């Protein structure tokens, strides 16, 4: 009897253990599923162009076209819009060895995927897609994705460089009889006036000089890009100094202390919106549209695109922002911030490469960069979603159903893959940023003109700084937390305290991080 019970238990355990791989060890490898005769199945995880719009419909004509023309059964999945969520999704899939065939990935998780052997080299694919390589993958792009002599990803041009700028409320300046500030001292004076002299004339103390939020990435560490114009005034914008003479981490530069002292003065005098440490991006953007502050660093389209500017235009028809230079520091430094050659990486999983899907992936990408693919994915169907103007630039004007224009919500789903074909060419810029007249104030606006103005201002080149090794998570926290604690007063900002903190930073691995970064920058020829 006892033996029978034991047998039953053993049988149940054996069955359970047999089921374990099914439930607990991820997906089975489907590499052998590709049949020579049928279409090649390619699973693509893409970064959606318009995050608030949905994915392309299941019966999207482009999918059928790709199947018929390229013999590819394309399966699409949009990645989450939030970068951390993207990383989590990709890392979770990677842990289960269930990465898709082709997927967009940020550089930091991509480096981890290379380390564990889950992404394949793509060197041989470049030759298979000559058209695409000529517009999307230049030498810099290949350097960006080359690790130990092999290219592990296809890096397309990302956001346009230097597309942000310092903006100031000209109507507030005029009302208070002030000139456009140039130096850091003049900036302080204007910020004080915007805070304490009621620039909007509503009789309430509800305005501030500067507005920002913490927006950090691996090449804009510390206080992040929104505070970089002030760090730049002291020559320490961005994470890294990418000059051959002074290469290294800016936080280890003594001038960083002076820059922090300046920002702390802004905080102590309460001339920066006190909500800035709590704001997320959307809160910040809602705040300037509500007239809370008079100076900010903002992106050209986030500021000047029709739908983004409309709420401000409605709230303040007489309001006017103008682009100005970033503050000039005591030693003449001046910079909106750092710029890199931003790239968007698409990686091919090892599984897909092992299944022989490389050529099909190259075929798909090459088609995307053909005239047919470029316009279909970039603007939709000609005559339905866009028309061409006299200069051959796609325009939403003159369509039979204006609601089907690629700019309208109903048709945005058809251009969700446009970031896979755009390369920041002139046609794209002209069509993406058309000149328009604001609905309430009747101003003539163009996000493209604004961007050109922003690009002319002083910036700091930091090409390749986004490709340098990231710090480990503990060091990253120590860095970000420490810098802010000096601003918030949790640590007293004195020279002695700052020096001691930098020593702790070094002890925790800061110096090694800097050395690794410099070595990588030298090896890749990033230092200028």
């Amino acid at each position, binding site marked *: 009897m006892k033996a029978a019970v034991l047998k039953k238990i053993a049988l149940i355990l054996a069955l359970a253990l047999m089921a374990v791989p099914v439930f*607990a060890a991820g997906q089975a490898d489907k590499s052998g599923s590709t049949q020579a005769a049928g279409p090649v199945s390619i699973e693509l995880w893409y970064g959606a162009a318009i995050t608030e719009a949905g994915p392309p419909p299941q019966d999207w004509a482009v999918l059928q076209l790709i199947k018929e023309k390229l013999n590819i059964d394309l399966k699409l999945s949009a990645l989450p819009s939030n970068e951390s969520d993207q990383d989590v999704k990709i890392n979770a899939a990677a842990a289960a060895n269930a990465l898709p065939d082709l997927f967009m990935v940020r550089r930091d998780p991509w480096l981890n995927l290379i380390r564990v052997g889950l992404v394949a080299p793509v060197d041989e694919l470049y030759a298979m897609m000559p058209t695409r390589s000529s517009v999307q993958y230049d030498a810099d792009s290949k350097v960006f994705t080359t690790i130990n002599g092999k290219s592990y990803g296809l890096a397309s041009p990302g956001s346009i460089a230097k597309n942000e700028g310092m903006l100031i409320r000209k109507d507030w300046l005029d009302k208070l009889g002030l000139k456009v500030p140039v130096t850091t001292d003049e900036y302080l004076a204007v910020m004080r006036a915007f805070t304490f002299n009621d620039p909007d004339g509503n009789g309430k103390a509800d305005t501030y000089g500067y507005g920002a939020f913490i927006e950090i990435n691996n090449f804009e560490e510390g206080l992040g890009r929104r505070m970089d114009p002030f760090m730049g005034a002291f020559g320490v914008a961005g994470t890294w100094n990418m000059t051959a003479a002074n290469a290294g981490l800016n936080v280890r530069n003594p001038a960083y202390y002076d820059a922090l002292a300046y920002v702390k003065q802004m905080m102590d005098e309460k001339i920066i919106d006190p909500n800035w440490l709590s704001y997320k991006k959307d809160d910040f953007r809602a705040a300037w549209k509500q007239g809370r502050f008079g100076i900010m660093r903002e992106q050209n389209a986030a500021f000047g695109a029709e739908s983004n500017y409309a709420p401000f235009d409605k709230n303040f028809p007489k309001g006017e922002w103008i682009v100005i230079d970033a503050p000039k520091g005591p030693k003449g430094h001046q910079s909106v911030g750092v710029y890199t050659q931003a790239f968007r990486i698409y990686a091919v999983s090892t599984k897909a490469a092992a299944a022989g899907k490389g050529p099909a992936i190259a075929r798909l990408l090459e088609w995307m960069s053909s005239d047919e693919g470029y316009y279909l994915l970039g603007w939709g169907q000609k005559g339905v979603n866009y028309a061409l103007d006299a200069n051959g630039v796609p325009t939403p004007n003159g369509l039979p159903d204006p609601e089907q224009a690629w700019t309208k919500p109903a048709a945005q789903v058809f251009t969700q893959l446009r970031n896979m074909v755009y390369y920041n060419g002139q046609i794209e810029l002209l069509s993406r940023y058309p000149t328009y007249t604001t609905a309430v104030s009747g101003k003539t606006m163009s996000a493209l003109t604004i961007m050109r103005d922003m690009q002319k201002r002083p910036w700091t080149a930091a090409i390749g700084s986004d490709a340098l090794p990231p710090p480990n998570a503990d060091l990253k926290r120590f860095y970000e937390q420490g810098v802010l604690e000096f601003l918030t007063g949790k640590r007293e900002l004195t020279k002695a305290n700052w020096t001691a903190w930098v020593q702790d930073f070094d002890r925790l691995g800061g110096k090694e991080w800097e050395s690794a970064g410099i070595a990588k920058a030298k090896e890749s020829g990033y230092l200028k």
Partner: protein
Amino acid sequence: MDMKSTVKRSKQKLMGDIKRHRAFYALLILPICYFIIFKYLPIWNGQIAFKDFMPLDGVLGSRWVGLANFTDFFQSFYFTELLRNTLFYSFMKLFVSVPLSIVLAVALYESARPRFSKLVQTMTYLPHFLSWVIVYGILLVLLAPGDGIVNDIIKFLGGKPIDFLTDTKAFPWIVILSDAWKEMGWGAIIFIAALMGIDSSLFEAASVEGASAIQRVWYITLPSIRPVIFMVVLLRLGTILDAGFNQMFMLYSIPVFSVADIIDTWVYRQGLLEFRFGLATAVGLFKGAIGMLLLVFANKLVRRISDTSII
């Protein structure tokens, strides 16, 4: 022979019971499947804690690293702070949320206005269904230093605005109180259920004897639900190192890392984002082991001082 026939009889009885109550047993199938698939089978992957997990090599094929993942966690620069923060929030939530839930449950039970009582009950457990994203939005509107409602009041009264969400002194209270607000009503449900089971003749007799409302609560209500209170506290002790990832992930920011970073948020950054699943699993095992030890210890203690226990 006797033994065999006894076993046979009990087996037949069990089968008979199952047949008679087959509807109830059928209901059990899904929960049992859930526990097998999501709780028991993944235990197999627990061995990742002792390995340098490489997805291509699989769970079995990954290199054995012994306790390296555990030592990485224990020797982390922030280990002490993480443990301190985690325990602080867990115990504070226990000491604040559970008593508040009990008070709310008793108040609702004692209320002489059933309609009002139902309205309050609904209003207090609705926040449970809000995600922490929405709660963060509410908190920002209430507590922002520039134009938050609370700071407007402070300024109106002549005080200095406080940046509740980025001030290291204020932040822990925001975490504890927002959790209490969100979960108090939901937590009260189990106590309300326990209160419903109290023999009403006890209250009638107490009233006849002239007991006040407070005395009724103190001498009848609370002692009657004591087993449930012990059970709730014991179950919470089992997850004492879970201090609320979702809440903290939404509310914390760099200025308050020193008082906000808990084990789970650290694991999210170090384990998930840095692709160190071995480390993440090691921390998970550590949390589970501590939780089990605490549970067993507390259960024994409770059994010694009362007749209640969950094991």
